[in-house]
């Protein structure tokens, strides 16, 4: 248990230390703190554990009903089945189809939505055309409109320009729905850059695009990283937009995963299902584990601050 008690940092605490930082002695209260946190951590990790364990068991073992038991016969066959040969309806090419579709959707959508968000934020922060503030307000409201209000008219509009059920169509849709948060993200970021810098560039004769490309973009790396994290996870995890707009040839991984699991007839292959679920979650989880604090930063700055 003593591994849990935090090490006392050498000798006297620094003068600016919080009062609570002194309470590092091992007391019943701290035992309670750790008991709570560990219980919570177990609850949060349980589904991940169940997924992993189920995905490496043969079906014969799963049928015994030992959900939490460790596999006695370790096998990766469910993983290869999930990737290569799991069926959605008549197609039995596995979840890899959806994986590549998602890649094809995520890459252009991320680039396009960030480019537009950056330009919007830049124009709103520095050029401030008359009326743009109001426009931005309405755009932000758009983040709260239920998708269902917009979905059918958008289908009609896209169909009229022959973009419905196509890759460019779903990219446009993701750009539209990502615009409020992306614009907000960049607008807030550029708002922290001193106006004097912009004015100096203006006086120097810099035009709209030149100031953006040569002055603002090179300073925007941190916020671009945050935006990429948000968009890649957000678009990868999207279900409803992909379902409606992507068309059967471009169904993203989430939709295909749901089809594999929920529309299969016959015996349910839980090990294959769980392997497919992990595979689908792999990309956003990898982004999350690699990016760490940047991910949290995205949450904080993406949380629309009315």
């Amino acid at each position, binding site marked *: 248990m003593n591994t849990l008690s935090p090490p006392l940092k050498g000798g006297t605490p620094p003068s600016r230390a919080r009062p609570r930082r002194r309470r590092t002695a091992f007391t019943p209260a701290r035992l309670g703190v750790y008991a709570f946190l560990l219980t919570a951590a177990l609850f949060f990790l349980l589904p991940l554990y169940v997924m992993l364990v189920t995905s490496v068991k043969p079906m014969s073992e799963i049928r015994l009903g030992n959900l939490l038991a460790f596999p006695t016969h370790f096998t990766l066959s469910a993983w290869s089945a999930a990737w290569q040969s799991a069926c959605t309806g008549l197609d039995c090419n596995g979840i890899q189809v959806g994986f590549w579709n998602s890649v094809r959707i995520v890459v252009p959508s991320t680039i396009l939505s960030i480019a537009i968000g950056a330009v919007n934020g830049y124009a709103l922060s520095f050029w401030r055309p008359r009326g743009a503030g109001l426009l931005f307000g309405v755009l932000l409201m758009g983040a709260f409109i239920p998708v269902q209000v917009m979905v*059918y008219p958008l289908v009609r509009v896209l169909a009229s320009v022959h973009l419905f059920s196509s890759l460019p169509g779903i990219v446009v849709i993701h750009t539209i729905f990502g615009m409020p948060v992306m614009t907000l993200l960049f607008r807030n970021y550029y708002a922290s850059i001193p106006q004097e810098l912009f004015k100096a560039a203006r006086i*120097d004769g810099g035009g709209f695009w030149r100031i953006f490309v040569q002055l603002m973009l090179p300073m925007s790396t941190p916020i671009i990283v945050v935006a990429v994290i948000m968009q890649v996870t957000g678009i990868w995890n999207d279900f409803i937009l992909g379902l409606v707009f992507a068309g059967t040839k471009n169904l993203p991984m989430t939709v295909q995963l749901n089809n594999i699991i929920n529309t299969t007839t016959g015996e349910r292959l839980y090990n294959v299902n769980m392997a497919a679920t992990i595979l689908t979650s792999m990309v956003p989880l990898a982004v999350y584990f690699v990016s760490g604090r940047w991910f949290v930063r995205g949450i904080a700055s993406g949380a629309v601050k009315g």
Partner: protein
Amino acid sequence: MHALKLPAGGSSKAHRMRLKKPLKKRFPIAAWLALLPMVMTVVFAYLGTMVWTARVSLSNSRTFPSGDFAGFTQYARLFNNDRWLLSLQNIVIYGACFIVACMVIGLLLAIFIDQRVVAEGALRTVFLYPYAMSFVATGLVWQWILNPELGAQAVLHKLGFAHARFDWIVDQDWVIYTIVIATVWQASGLVMALLLAGLRGIDDELWKAARIDGIPRWRVYVSIVVPMLGPSISTAFVLLFVMVVKLYDAVVAMTQGGPGTASEVPAKFIMDYLFGRANIGLASAASIVLLATVLAILAPFFYARSRAALRKEV
């Protein structure tokens, strides 16, 4: 940045420009051109679609939108539709449970993590990782965990609780709570992250003062710290509320609205009537009701917040 350094002669040029016309007043054509995608999005994708949907909700449209005017018959039909009423009831139960559970769990996690615990980073990572997963994956994992034959119920039986019942996912009265469990697992880490950031922003002096006055720590949390977290809590509330309104993926993945229609929710109702049952008029009326509810609940929030922001500026 380097290419645009102010040269020595810059100021005279600036004078000339300023004499011609002040910088601000000129109509920035380039800026408006650059904002064109945003203008189009706002005008067509947001406002236009809203108006269109509102118009269709007042017509008799079935498979295709029609131009006739039927007054509020679709709304009357909607509120006589048992499935819609059930989905409203479900979303209210779900929303209340989901928001309260996420807030309580998120707040407790944030406060406990803020007690200078070891492995803080690891704990935070564990509590937040579900948020990186999609609602579809979340729904599917919990569908498997809650599987009545092979899942948690079987585990309980094997542990010796032979009569334990945990088959909520196939029970019409309880199924909505299984969706609460799954989505709380997914989203409470978000609340933790937001509130932890708020807690870290609280001045140390507060704790010193409280300690000098001999106030117990729990009391400080209840009476001072949590009220001080107001802005973070309201941000979390708004985010959770939006998730409640959008609830669709998790239900589709986990229960497909079943058993029967027991876990039907408004977003799914609308999608089904738009694309499956081809009743656009009814679906449009339902989505307008949804929109009005969202605005009615969020508007006071934003109003209060902008008031607070103004007061701070003055």
